[in-house]
């Protein structure tokens, strides 16, 4: 599996060349949010705001009203926790084209609860007019800016930084409202998002090798959520569905799927992996995913619990799972 570094930093700078109405706004986290190369390339389009996020969000609304497209970059918590009123009233209410790149989703930082956006989807989803994207790999980061611009209104992007794997074929770009079908099967449907998808791919592969028939979807448009193919799969899954997310299970992907299932009258069971109504703390990503139960092994254990089977899959097995490039929208006959 290919690991790429600082994908957004290079991609944004290159892409911005043909999008002169885009301004990048920073709140003192320029290299931490991968906009340092952009600043070097386009100093006059870089708006430094200092550690003052409430003003940054409202000022972005003013710039958007005058025809610019502000790309706000900061840690996610400082967008939706620090400046929620400004996000709601200056930006979302007016449906202005402000694009908010929130970094450090969930437990991707050892910075502890103050830096970990573990409840952002729940809060931002509650705001009318907001669109929410969450890329899961380098291919999606590289191809997300066009779809972000195409949305007539504000977009919140739950962004990954630093070293990111390439899970999906470069020829399969991010598409708004299209869930990636990574596997089809009839025992269980797994729905994952963000960095959980890499973990889920490993677990699904190991479980399939043991004979379990699993459907796996990767969701990168969290709002508006397109439930069609997922609901169809859940309806034909013997043991129901498992969601897996780097977020609290209250209001995130699990709740989004639950809403859709309830609305469709699904009689299947839903199991939600993620932070179980808990704050995070400062530790490594791997440690925290294990502690809070949303790594590959957690999915294996949940599959065992609900199927009543024992697969004998070990941590070593999961470590050695080789991930090949996944082709999105696979056709059933290809499997």
């Amino acid at each position, binding site marked *: 599996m290919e690991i790429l570094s600082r994908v957004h930093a290079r991609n944004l700078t290159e892409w911005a060349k043909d999008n002169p109405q885009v301004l990048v706004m920073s709140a003192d986290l320029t290299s931490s949010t991968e906009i340092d190369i952009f600043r070097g390339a386009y100093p*006059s389009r870089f*708006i*430094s*705001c*200092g550690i*003052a996020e*409430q*003003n940054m*969000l*409202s*000022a*972005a*609304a*003013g*710039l*958007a*009203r*005058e*025809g*610019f497209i502000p790309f706000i970059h900061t840690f996610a918590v400082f967008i939706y926790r620090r400046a929620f*009123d*400004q996000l709601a*009233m*200056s930006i979302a*209410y*007016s*449906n202005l084209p402000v694009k908010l790149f929130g970094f450090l989703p969930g437990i991707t930082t050892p910075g502890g609860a103050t830096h970990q956006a573990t409840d952002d989807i729940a809060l931002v989803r509650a705001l*009318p*007019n907001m669109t929410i994207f969450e890329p899961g790999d380098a291919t999606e980061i590289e191809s997300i800016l066009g779809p972000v611009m195409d949305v*007539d*209104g504000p977009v919140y992007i739950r962004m990954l930084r630093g070293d990111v794997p390439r899970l999906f074929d470069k020829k399969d770009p991010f598409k708004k409202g299209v869930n990636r079908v990574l596997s089809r099967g009839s025992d269980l449907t797994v729905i994952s998002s963000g960095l959980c998808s890499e973990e889920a791919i490993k677990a699904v592969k190991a479980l399939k090798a043991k004979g379990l028939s699993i459907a796996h979807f990767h969701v990168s448009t969290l709002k508006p959520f397109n439930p069609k193919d997922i609901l169809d799969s859940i309806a034909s899954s013997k043991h129901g569905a498992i969601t897996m997310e780097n977020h609290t299970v209250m209001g995130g992907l699990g709740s989004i799927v639950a809403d859709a299932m309830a609305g469709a009258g699904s009689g299947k069971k839903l199991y939600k992996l993620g932070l179980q109504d808990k704050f995070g703390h400062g530790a490594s990503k791997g440690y925290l995913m294990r502690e809070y139960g949303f790594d590959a092994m957690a999915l294996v254990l949940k599959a065992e619990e609900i199927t009543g089977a024992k697969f004998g899959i070990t941590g070593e097995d999961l470590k050695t799972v080789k991930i090949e490039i996944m082709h999105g929208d696979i056709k059933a006959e290809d499997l």
Partner: protein
Amino acid sequence: MTTEEVKKARQAASGIRKRVLAHTLINNGGYLSQACSSADALAALYTSIMKLGPVPEPIVPKPFPGVPGPLNKDYFTGGDFNGAHLPQYDRFILSPAHYALALYACLIETGRMDETGLDYFNRDGSSVEMIGSEHSPGMEVTNGSLGQALSQAAGIALARKLKKEAGRVFVFLSDGELQIGQTWEAFQFMSHWKLDNMIIYVDVNGYQCDGKMENVMNIEPAGSRLEAFGARVFRARGNDFEELAAPAGLAPDTRPTVILSYSCPYEGIELMKQNAPKFHYMRFKNEEEKKSYTELLRTWKS
């Protein structure tokens, strides 16, 4: 300001107070004090200080178009009442939406809103809201959540600088907003980005919802605080048209300009003095009190 301009502004200010008083009587309550303290500044801004795009004839407010959203193509802002958004024209941003009634009255007095506009005030399905919103006459950003409009105006001012537009951005602020953290973030931003195309009028009437500001939460010395944040600050008497207007005529010098308009919450309606320290919303305590205000309106001298 010329003598003629002062006369015109004074007439408009008197008209604003009279209309708001009449309206407060009809509705048995209203934001009367805000009109008293701000009428002179609003009148000076609209009759003389700002260069807004003309409005060919007084506009009749349209019904509420529904909240903004990608599917609502009928949505509009109340910016039309302030004229076209052309590079050479100034903009006006009202921050404390609680001054809506005073602004509506000002728009009527200056020929921008039809006299019938106030008939729609606070009516269900109307855009002439009690605490105005961005679709309300004369307003064009989300301004009800105090402290947010100044930052939005700063964004507009920065955009106008980037586009090299000559028009300025005027903001009307209430003194209570100097208690809000975001206001100071905004001033920090405005001076850092040298937004000398911004002119901010602060209605320093010294009172807020809970009472006298020096008891609720002191903001003084407001002038030196603002100067420390990089603003060019002027202090004016809130009822002195020339003092209010003069700073806006100065050449820009990289700093945002602030005019602290030290006003009186019962300016022009002395009867209201007895309400001290509660001026935020006028409610008539009894019929006798209402009668005295009715009499004041009947004998109003403009």
